């Protein structure tokens, strides 16, 4: 254990206040980061974590307050200023250029010059040296688009280290990672700290916090409400501090015998963007009142399967039937008409129109229903009522239905999609990573909603990398590995060991 408190903090943020229009995202926040420490920042969706860190990274300027970095007062008006002072940030959405190589991405903006020319050799040497020192191995010539998410994140970390960053901010780095990638990341973070770096780590997963952090700061509604040393707290207390009430998933599940088949998938084969076969000859049946959990590490065909069901990807072969009616391949309208609620994993690119208002996003699928328009004219009375009800009902934190969607926090974006998709009383729900990036309170809420939908009679496919989630919700579990279904068990007969083996590709 490192004794941190005795040291002078490397970062001191004093009474930081930041207001967006009518939302106070940060109110009088005092935040310190000590050398060689991993500090976890916890808080509900919209608590102001990203905002606070964006201020430290110079991306936003605060309305009030002062920042000291290594004892010196810092005026940060752009990320460049922050980087100069040794602060680096890895956003949840990566900023790499897919068609360029690892090396090119890393040196962007810092080009080492020798008589005005790019000195690629020196840059590569420096990169290889860094890789050696921190054990972050990756081929400098590889193109970004060929890398897995976990590897891309490693590139982002290297990019920060390349700029001699001493303070590293990571905004929900584990949300997109597979379990094995998460343990790799943790090993990396530990070695960074040993080398003298300090890290701020944002996550919603309390177990990770306990596993990696030295100290925990909890935000609620823009204010710091608690600070704990990891040894002095537990999951239950943390959940409580975040949400302000008791949350521990004590979900009551009614055992309902599954009804007739709703979704039938026959011999489905789908290729991915690179033209390789991603889903190989899959057969699946999901019944009324049944939740089928699809476990597995991302990148084993789940995305392609989901997109085919959504109607935004054409399969190579096979049929999909919903209540006996064939789904037109490659037609989102057909999926919507057959009563499918679709929760895509890629919220910003696929699910939402970030520059339109919350309301305009909520009516995306329903604006064509006779309720909402008459002879081509939108019926705004009904639409306003509809969106107000959803915003209220799902607790979407926003200044109102007219707020631009871009201003919502990560978790609230997901609520907008859920509200939109579940509002139509679907017969089938296909949910891809539905609680990724959500806080414990919101997660509990969404789990309850999914169970309610099941009790109401929906058939549900739940694609998730989170085994806890799979075990909490599913009635039946299958595992996808390299485009195939590895196993199919009822919950009662499933053991974590067996599922774990299937996930890593081991049969029996």
């Amino acid at each position, binding site marked *: 254990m490192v004794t941190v408190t005795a040291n002078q903090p490397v970062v001191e943020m004093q009474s930081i206040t930041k207001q967006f*229009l009518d939302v106070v995202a940060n109110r009088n926040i005092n935040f310190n980061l000590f050398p060689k420490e991993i500090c976890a920042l916890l808080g509900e969706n919209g608590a102001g974590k990203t905002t606070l860190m964006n201020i430290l990274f110079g991306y936003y*300027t605060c309305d009030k307050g002062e920042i000291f970095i290594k004892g010196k007062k810092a005026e940060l008006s*752009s990320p460049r200023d922050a980087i100069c002072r040794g602060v680096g940030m890895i956003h949840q959405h990566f900023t790499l250029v897919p068609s360029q190589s690892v090396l090119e991405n890393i040196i962007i903006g810092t080009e080492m010059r020798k008589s005005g020319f790019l000195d690629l050799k020196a840059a590569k040497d420096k990169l290889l040296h860094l890789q050696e020192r921190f054990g972050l191995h990756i081929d400098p010539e590889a193109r970004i688009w060929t890398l897995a998410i976990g590897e891309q994140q490693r590139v982002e970390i290297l990019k920060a280290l390349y700029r001699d960053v001493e303070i590293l901010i990571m905004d929900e780095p584990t949300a997109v990672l597979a379990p094995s990638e998460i343990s790799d990341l943790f090993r990396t973070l530990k070695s960074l700290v040993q080398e003298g770096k300090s890290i701020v780590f944002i996550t919603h997963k309390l177990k990770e916090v306990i596993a990696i952090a030295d100290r925990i700061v909890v935000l609620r509604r823009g204010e710091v409400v608690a600070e704990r040393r990891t040894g002095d707290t537990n999951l239950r207390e943390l959940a409580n501090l975040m949400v302000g009430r008791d949350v521990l998933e004590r979900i009551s599940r009614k055992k309902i015998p599954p009804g007739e088949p709703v979704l039938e998938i026959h011999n489905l084969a789908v290729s991915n963007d690179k033209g390789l076969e991603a889903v190989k000859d899959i057969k699946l049946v999901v019944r009324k009142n049944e939740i089928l959990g699809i476990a597995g590490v991302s990148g084993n065909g789940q995305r392609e399967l989901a997109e085919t069901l959504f109607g935004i990807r054409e399969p190579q072969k096979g049929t999909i039937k919903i209540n006996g009616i064939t789904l037109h391949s490659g037609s*989102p309208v057909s999926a919507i008409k057959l009563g499918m609620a679709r929760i895509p994993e890629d919220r910003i690119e*696929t699910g*939402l129109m970030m520059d339109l208002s919350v309301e305009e996003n909520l009516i995306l699928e329903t604006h064509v229903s006779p309720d909402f328009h008459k002879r081509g004219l939108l019926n705004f009375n009904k639409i306003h009522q509809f969106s107000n009800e959803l915003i209220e009902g799902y607790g979407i934190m926003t200044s109102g239905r007219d707020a631009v969607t871009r201003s919502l926090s990560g978790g609230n974006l997901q609520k907008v999609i859920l509200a939109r998709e579940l509002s139509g009383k679907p017969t089938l729900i296909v949910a891809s990573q539905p609680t990724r990036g959500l806080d414990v309170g919101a997660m509990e809420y969404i789990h309850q909603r999914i169970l309610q939908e099941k009790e109401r009679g929906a058939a549900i496919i739940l694609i998730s990398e989170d085994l806890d989630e799979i075990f909490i919700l599913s009635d039946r579990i299958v595992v996808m590995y390299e485009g195939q279904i590895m196993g199919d068990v009822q919950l009662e007969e499933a053991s974590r060991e067996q599922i774990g083996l299937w996930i890593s590709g081991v049969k029996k």
Partner: protein
Amino acid sequence: MIGFKIVKRKPLPGWARLVIPVAAIIVTLVLSAIPILIAGGNLWKSYYFLFYGALGTRYNLLETFVKASPLIFTGLGVAFAFRAKFWNIGAEGQLLAGALTATWVGINAAGAPKILLLPVFIACGFIAGGIWAAIPATLKTKLKVDDVVSTLLLNYVMIHIMGALLFGPLQQPGSSWPRSSEIVEAAKYPMLLVRSRFHLGIPLAFFAVAIIWFINDKVVFGYQSRAVGVNIKAAHFGGINTTSVILRTAIISGGLAGVAGVGELCAIQYRLIMDISPGYGYSGIVIAMLGNLHPLGVLFSSFFFSVIIVGAQTMSRMTGVPYYIAEVIQGMALMVMLVFLLLTEYKIMVIRK
């Protein structure tokens, strides 16, 4: 050391949206003093005649309306397309398509009553412009052909088609000029005010502004078109038929430009000539940007342009400042507006290092 830094600012309140275009125009006029002075003009005299020429007499004022009409149509068309991110640079060609079709109908429609003929005329121009814009839209949605390039190139295709016809089947019998016969009397737009060229196309342009405004804000299609413009992937995911939305957007956009062509033919020239449009289609692009793609903005910026165009003639006649100063001012207006729009989202901070 003192440096400057550009940082994001809080969204401006609603009134700023009204103040900004006005401020931009004032700044433009101040900056326009530079070229006027360089051209050796007397500043006050030049400005006086610029505005006098455009607004000073009844005839001049009405003439400003006459010039604004085609600009409103093309500006509106371009703005409508841009909002859906269909980059229609081809309003010029669509305008010509409208004028060409109207000419063909107009020469051959002897004997039909005016009440009947005019709507048919306008519809023909709209459809022709719409079809000419539908071609690049289809190329874009089916074959992923870049719309900026295809719409632009189709302008030249249309100019050459028009040239071929004006030297061929459409040429006025006995004439050696590339010009058509005059359209029949019944096809001419009625003049609505005496002793002026204030014609039917002007109220029609105002009507079009209202219609587009209405479509944008109240009609299902306007919502879909905006959704496609913001995130086509999400719009497709949400069940919007993006191919059809882009096609319909293009048809409306090209159709509006086509009606501009009908107006120039039926109210101004009465016969098709090669330079029936002095680049109204291209001005439409600038006007759409200047008007921030909003119908009302388009209306205002069209008038601003038309004041400059009409006024510059008088200014040049009375002070000797060359006429092309008008174009310099138009270009300047766009630059100033773009800077102003940037300043609505960002602010410049002075920092001391």
